[in-house]
């Protein structure tokens, strides 16, 4: 059932779906008004990453680097040394893989204040296929020292994350998505670095989700509830640092954890939860997501089912594993 403590933070209307990348662009355009240090860098994808919304309002603070992600990432480091707050956007595949060494050496090693906000993450990119579906980005960014990793679940949380990281001194990676998702939170919700939020409550199992998968996990939890199985559903936008307490306490209570991510199950949210629980409170963890294979072209909802993290798959994983408790 819905966590009564946070009921007033949830969106009660059935409004239209919004992509987190769109919420990002809007947030940037708003924040650009109040913070003149913000500069935005993009690599010929501003219409897709939605940084175009900032570029239209503040053309003098928007820098297009053409199709050259390595140069853009290092240039962002240069901007940061001049006291600017660079937001760097491209697709997640390019931010994490093409520009990996630049993220590590130009940005993270000196700890520079660069906000890497990458869109089109996960297989839910859909039709573009494997070359454009980032399934390793969280693993890569999480393993680079000093980089914080955030994966907001909806438009509200995206806006809150972007507002929050303005005050964060140092590098971070924000994982945004192409596809539209329901608005889960209302504007009273506040994102905190290192904190997750329990959206639903129950004793049978714990589901941990982030980003695109949170709304799918909510569907799954509701289906389970209809069958009399109540679960804790934790939204973990702050993947690094992760909220240790909320996961450990829930795992202690339920004894079964299912993680759901639009990412390879190696190195992402599921791994982060396993690393944590192994040390603090060993529990059975089922990692749903991309099972160490590449993505493929297709409609995102078809892919989510084919790769086994649609709401039915999540509900089945919980039910099948209850017997091990």
């Amino acid at each position, binding site marked *: 059932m819905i966590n009564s403590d946070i009921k007033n933070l949830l969106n009660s209307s059935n409004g239209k779906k919004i992509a987190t990348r769109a919420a990002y662009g809007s947030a940037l355009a708003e924040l650009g008004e109040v913070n003149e240090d913000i*500069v935005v860098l993009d690599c010929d994808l501003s219409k897709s990453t939605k940084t175009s919304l900032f570029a239209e309002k503040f053309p*003098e*603070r928007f*820098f297009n*680097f*053409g199709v*050259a992600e*390595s*140069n*853009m*990432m*290092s*240039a*962002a*480091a*240069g*901007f*940061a*040394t*001049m*006291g*600017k707050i*660079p937001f760097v956007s491209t697709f997640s595949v390019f931010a994490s893989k093409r520009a990996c*060494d*630049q993220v590590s*050496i*130009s940005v993270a*090693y*000196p*700890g520079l204040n660069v906000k890497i906000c990458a869109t089109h993450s996960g297989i839910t990119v859909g039709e573009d296929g494997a070359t454009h579906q980032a399934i390793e980005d969280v693993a890569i960014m999480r393993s680079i020292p000093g980089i914080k990793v955030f994966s907001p679940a909806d438009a509200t949380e995206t806006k809150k994350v972007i507002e929050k990281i303005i005050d964060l001194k140092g590098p971070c990676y924000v994982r945004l998505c192409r596809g539209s998702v329901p608005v889960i939170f209302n504007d009273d919700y506040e994102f905190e670095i290192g904190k997750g939020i329990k959206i639903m409550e129950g004793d049978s199992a714990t589901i941990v989700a982030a980003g695109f998968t949170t709304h799918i996990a909510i569907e799954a939890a509701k289906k389970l509830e209809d069958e009399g199985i109540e679960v804790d559903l934790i939204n973990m936008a702050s993947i690094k640092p992760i909220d240790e307490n909320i996961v450990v306490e829930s795992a202690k209570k339920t004894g079964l954890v299912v993680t759901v991510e639009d990412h390879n199950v190696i190195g992402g949210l599921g791994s982060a939860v396993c690393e944590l629980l192994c040390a603090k409170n060993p529990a059975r963890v089922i990692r749903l997501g991309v099972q160490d294979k590449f993505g493929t072209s297709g409609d995102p909802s078809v892919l989510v089912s084919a790769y086994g993290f649609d709401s039915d798959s999540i509900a089945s994983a919980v039910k099948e594993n209850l017997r091990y408790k």
Partner: protein
Amino acid sequence: MDSNLKKMLEQKARDIRVDIINMLCAAGSGHPGGSLSIADIFSYLYFSGILNIDPADPGKENRDRVVLSKGHACPVLYATLAMKGYFDRSELKTLRKYGSILQGHPDMNKTPGVDISTGSLGQGLSCAVGMALGAKLDKNDIKVFAIVGDGECDEGQIWEAVMSASHYRLDNLIAIVDLNGLQIDGFTKDIMDTSPMAEKWSSFGWKTFEIDGHNYDMIEEAVKKGISVKGKPVCIIARTTKGKGVAFMENICDWHGTAPDKEQKEKAISDINKACL
């Protein structure tokens, strides 16, 4: 160039070279060849008065920036910064040792006077592009110097940066290519031929100057003219000798990344000092 200034710069360069040899011998590893090749240019940049910098205030907001994109040549930077007064010269013997402020490649958070961390080739010039863009945005009239290796120009990222600097008309950016003709595995013409270097940069829209990188008159003329160029970035192609000043190191690619032992150190210092006789 004024003859007294030239004499002073030549002496500084000798002192820098001696410090490079001493610190590399103490470290037991590191990169002498490309540090020695660029020593005269460092002497000019830091001791001619051309840079607006203050060793007492390394983070001064409106200072000129120096980016050692070929970060492995950091001994020349460290020797120069110590001589300039950014930190005590005794630190030089800690190069590459655990706990040292002098890392194997430049670290902006550990070494006063280092404007950006570098070491992975190709990235420094892009960082310099970001600095130059940031300065322009603030209408901050500073200059950004980036020292690039000729072997480093094999990196694709260099040409991404070259293209973007020209696109944004960064006339506050001056790149200096240390064209010593050698890289780790041999002569650049054999390993990866980057010639004609000047034509490449100028075809990307940069104003280029070709000079002898050990001739102070030419260095001064190029840098001063470079600073006055408007509307485009400037590249000074400095023809240099790798290992310059130490006869047994000159033009030998094995001295790219090998430190001298004690005997070699004495011989090297004697070579350097002979040059002033």
